């Protein structure tokens, strides 16, 4: 009798039990989604270029395929310096004149979305992947 009641009106009376199930279900769903996100994050692909921005405006784009050494001069008279080095497909800041030196201490970056930030000089170096090749990745 009571059971029948629950089946016919899912929102009424015994809604408490169902509501608890909802919370469990939603939590489980979010956990699964987060795990998927984590997997994507951990196994994301290598990027193929780095984009340097200074105070939000683009300073330059450099391919990860070629080894280069770029002096990023910022500040009013170009007195602030970060030396960006690209070597063996990885980018890192070799030396910098910023007071904290966090950017120079950062590990080399190469994966899509990774970035090195120099807050004092407002320099952001981010790895990107060049948009779409003509050939599709998967053919269905």
């Amino acid at each position: 009798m009571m059971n029948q009641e629950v089946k016919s009106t899912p929102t009424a009376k015994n809604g408490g039990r169902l509501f608890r199930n909802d919370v469990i279900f939603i939590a489980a769903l979010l956990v699964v989604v987060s795990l998927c996100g984590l997997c994507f994050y951990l196994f994301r692909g290598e990027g193929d270029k780095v984009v340097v921005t200074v105070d939000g405006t683009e300073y330059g784009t450099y391919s990860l395929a070629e080894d280069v050494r770029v002096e990023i001069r910022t500040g009013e008279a170009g007195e602030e310096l970060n030396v960006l080095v690209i070597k063996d497909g990885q980018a890192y800041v070799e030396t910098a004149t910023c007071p904290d030196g966090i950017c120079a201490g950062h590990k080399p970056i190469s994966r899509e979305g990774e970035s090195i930030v120099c807050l004092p000089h407002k320099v952001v170096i981010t790895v990107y992947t060049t948009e779409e090749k003509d050939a599709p990745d998967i053919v269905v």
Partner: protein
Amino acid sequence: MRPTTKKLAVLGLCTAVALILAYVESMLPPLFHAVPGIKIGLPNIIIVFVLYRFGLREAAAVSLIRMLAVSFLFGNMMALVYSLAGAFLSMAVMAVFKKLNFLSVVGVSVAGGVFHNVGQILTAMLLLGTAELGYYLIVLAITGTVSGIFVGLCGAIIVKRIPKKLI
């Protein structure tokens, strides 16, 4: 199983309300400019209501007609393909969860909301041939959960408040 005239009229009314809600939603400013495709899915309130008050067949019919009408009125045919794929998967998942009977309207609606996005992204992956859209799916799964909760709560209230005698 010929529908009675009354049922036909009510379902027609529901379709009309779903259409109006789709129109209202299209006028709302986008929530996040950075990520397109995030929607509350106001018409789904009606779909959830019909699913609970009448059943799967009726809900599927209202959903299909409403999408065809929306596409003809405001959208384009490409959007229709995505909508159909999303709605089909969403409806199937909601029907399964409703049948299992361990979730309330809210939980079923959340499942529907998330799988609506899953269906759309899978279609986009097939059509565009890019696997990178997987990132996008994670964002949409979370927003789909939030909008699913909202839609489910609204749907549950409507199911509760509109007396069976009336409809």
